[in-house]
């Protein structure tokens, strides 16, 4: 309930994610959805020029939330560089927050704005309610040679949003300005192959649907004729059935829903997956069109594009539904899973840490603070094995981790020791409660969970982030090394060629100038050597600057 109230105060949060292969029209869809040029197309610096949309106000400009790539650089805004096109772009997730005034909702969706906005008005809110809308976009999916990287990144991102909410909910003192960044709907853009789903589509949708409502969408539907489109839709639905992809289905409950809703949902279910074609260019009449030599396509024509229906579903009829399923179903599941895994862990471990008397006091915040300080202390002197971890299993694993420590470079060692410190904290947190108050185990456990879970989650996240950063750093270092190597090689090549040419030149003319020849030949290598040294130092300085 508290969320509801918060919603009122700060407007409704709503978050939409666009996932799909590069070149399936995500950017165009976003521009079309907001009816303004907000995102630039790939390789372009400026967004397409469209008149400002007064209903939409960008609160936070596009920012990179998370990324992963082989060379360690987010690549979604990279300029077009023909010579570097063969580098894998990795994956980038960006988010743009904006405010949308629902009061002057688009006419198409206003007609059927359902319970959501009407309840708002009943509760005394003004009709011109704001939606804090955030648009999450993925870049570079499907462009890499190996796309498993993208999956992990996107799933990790979604999970992180859930974790944040979970941590916030279980906190004792809640942050009143906490922003709920969970993604409510993900639109998955299926490339218009005409052959059903690919391995990647199935995999990606399955992963997404753990954390959000997935709406499969046929991108660029203007590449299909009517028959082909019908066939493709059927194939996709078959495939979704066959591989049991849990996408969002417009289901009806004949007992609860009224007749209209049932009918509407059934119609939508029949229409799924929505076939969408998009454009961010208007013709003279202000309609969005795609201009072909053989005709003009109006993208909001209901007879072949489901764009209007989709907009309506997103902002009108199923707006609240998406939010509810995310919170009540997906998030609850996740929460139950996460919490039970934490408490299970506690139960498992109870047996072997009974000897541990140091933490026998009932857990409290001050106790936790002391744990943190000890943890930090431990992290500073890395290899000190804490005395209280003398349970049978731990020494082994500790030895192993030490072993791996030995052959890793210095930077890694430091971060690993930090991580060990973190693990220590978590270990302490997790193992501290079970010796407490045997009289009321359940109660203390609950309390304990509520106190520790946020921190556990936070630490896990920090660890994950650290690991990722390390990886990225290593990758970028490697990439730099490679490039430097390449450049040096090329420089050497050039030098060699230069010398060869000069020699040839000289040989050609040396019959007459044999005496001068020797002196110039001596000069040439010296010069080239000098140049090479210069370039090397340059590169070295660049590297050191980067590092």
């Amino acid at each position, binding site marked *: 309930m508290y969320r509801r109230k918060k919603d009122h105060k700060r407007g409704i949060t709503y978050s939409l994610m666009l996932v799909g292969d590069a*070149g399936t029209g995500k950017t165009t869809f976003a521009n079309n959805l907001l009816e303004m040029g907000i995102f630039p197309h790939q390789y372009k610096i400026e967004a397409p020029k469209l008149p400002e949309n007064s209903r939409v106000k960008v609160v936070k400009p596009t920012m990179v939330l998370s990324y992963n790539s082989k060379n360690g650089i987010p690549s979604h805004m990279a300029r077009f560089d*023909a010579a570097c096109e063969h580098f894998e772009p990795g994956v980038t997730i960006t988010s743009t927050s904006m405010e949308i005034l629902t009061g002057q909702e688009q006419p198409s969706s206003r007609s059927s704005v359902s319970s959501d906005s009407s309840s708002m008005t009943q509760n005394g809110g003004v009709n011109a309610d704001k939606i804090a809308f955030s648009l999450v976009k993925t870049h570079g999916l499907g462009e890499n040679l190996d*796309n498993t990287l993208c999956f992990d990144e996107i799933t990790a991102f979604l999970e992180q949003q859930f974790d944040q909410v979970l941590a916030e909910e279980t906190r004792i003192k809640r942050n009143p300005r906490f922003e709920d960044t969970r993604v409510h709907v993900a639109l998955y853009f299926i490339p218009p192959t*005409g052959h059903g789903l690919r*391995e990647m589509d*199935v995999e990606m949708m399955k992963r997404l649907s753990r954390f959000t409502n997935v709406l499969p969408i046929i991108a660029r539907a203007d590449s299909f004729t009517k028959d082909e489109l019908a066939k493709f839709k059927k194939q996709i639905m078959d495939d979704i059935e066959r591989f049991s992809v849990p996408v969002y289905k417009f289901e009806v409950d004949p007992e609860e829903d009224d007749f209209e809703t049932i009918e509407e949902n059934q119609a939508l279910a029949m229409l799924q997956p929505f076939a969408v074609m998009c454009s961010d260019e208007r013709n003279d009449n202000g309609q969005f069109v795609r201009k072909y030599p053989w005709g003009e396509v*109006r993208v909001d024509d209901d007879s072949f594009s489901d764009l209007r229906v989709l907009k309506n579903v997103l902002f009108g009829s199923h707006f609240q539904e998406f939010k509810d399923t995310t919170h009540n179903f997906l998030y609850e599941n996740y929460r139950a899973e996460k919490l039970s895994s934490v408490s299970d862990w506690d139960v498992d471990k109870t047996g072997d840490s009974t000897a541990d008397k140091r933490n026998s006091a009932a857990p409290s915040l001050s106790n936790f603070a002391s744990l943190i300080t000890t943890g930090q202390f431990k992290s500073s002197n890395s290899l000190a094995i804490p005395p209280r971890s003398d349970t*049978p299993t731990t020494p082994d694993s500790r030895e192993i981790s030490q072993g791996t420590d030995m052959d890793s470079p210095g930077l890694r060692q430091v971060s690993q020791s930090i991580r060990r410190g973190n693990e220590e904290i978590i270990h302490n947190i997790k193992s501290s409660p079970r010796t407490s108050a045997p009289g009321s185990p359940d109660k203390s456990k609950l309390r304990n969970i509520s106190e520790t879970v946020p921190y556990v989650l936070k630490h896990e996240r920090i660890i994950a982030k650290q690991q990722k950063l390390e990886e990225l750093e290593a990758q970028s270092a490697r990439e730099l090394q490679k490039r430097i190597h390449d450049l040096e090689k090329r420089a050497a090549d050039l030098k060699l060629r230069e010398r060869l040419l000069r020699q040839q030149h000289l040989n050609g003319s040396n019959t007459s100038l044999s005496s001068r020849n020797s002196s110039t030949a001596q000069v040439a290598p010296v010069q080239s050597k000098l140049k090479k040294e210069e370039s090397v130092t340059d590169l070295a300085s660049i590297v050191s600057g980067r590092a």
Partner: protein
Amino acid sequence: MSSENIVVGVSNLPNQRFKIVSEQGGTFTLMVCGESGLGKTTFINTLFQTTLKHADPHQRRNQPIKKTVEIDVLRAVLEEKNLSLRVNVIDTPGFGDNVNNNKSWQTIVDFIDEQHDSYMRQEQQPHRDVKFDLRVHAVLYFIRPTGHGLKPLDIETMKRLSTRANLIPVIAKSDTLTAKELQEFKLRIRQVVEAQEIRIFTPPLDESDSPDPAVMEHARQLIESMPFAVIGSETKFDNGQGTMVPARKYPWGIVEVENDNHCDFRKLRSLLLRTNLLDLVLSTEELHYEAYRKLRLEGSGASDDQSVPVRAPARKLSHNPQFKEEENALKKYFTDQVKAEEQRFRQWEQNIVNERIRLNGDLEDVQSKVKKLEEQVRTLQLKRH
């Protein structure tokens, strides 16, 4: 006696040649390559105006979703005005379909090399009048019409293909790009092709070779419109003037395949069949096959290992790296399992040792108790006495 009046018959040579050619017919091997769902099959059928290859969705759909790249060879004989052309069409289904497409070009590259290799071996045989020739004369690489640029997968594959065969990049399903988008897309692809040093096939533009300015102009046009934007269709529609043409019928208009304003299909067909078929075949023979042959026979130490004997070049089949990866994964799994088991055993051992210590302790306890009791018994006995 002026030489002009005497006709020895040398000038009939072209006619003789024509006869030979028309009796023997020709062979043309075309490979289509690109991600699935880009209309490769449809394009082949459109190009030869017959249903050479059936799009068979049912067969495709019963396969498991994780696919490997396959090679499909399809042979057909086309007859036109008494001239028969043996056409081999090679399809590469499954290319680019997986999540991890690293090295998926290997199968295709291996196939091309293999054809060169087998032809070379046949040439070295004592009887070589019947040669089985499946050397690829042209590779059509289908590019997804994203409007962005080329993907790393496209670039890597094209790089490798371009050194082995005549590569012709093609923008598939170009009816989803507006004229402006298409122009930008083409420009970008051309830039990438140039910067990445991908050699694509271009019709010869040698002034001395063909003095006919019309031919030159045509060739220049072809080069200008590379990469060709194509669409394919197997059905015919009325084009508004009463003739039935292959086209795609959308609610917003009819896209004609053979209309130069709509796509470059005619140009591509002209390049493939009408004007430059011979160039394709010859450059395969002279350029790519020769290069391969030289490489094999020289056994050039830089690229191949030295152990290959020069005279009888046994081509070492490069192992599919995907299998290698799988093998590594399996090995890793195995070692992990072993490690886990060992860990378990160590745990057991530990437990057993602990147990033994405990039992020993118990035993000692019992023994001391016994001793105590004995002591007591002794004291009691002493007391009684």
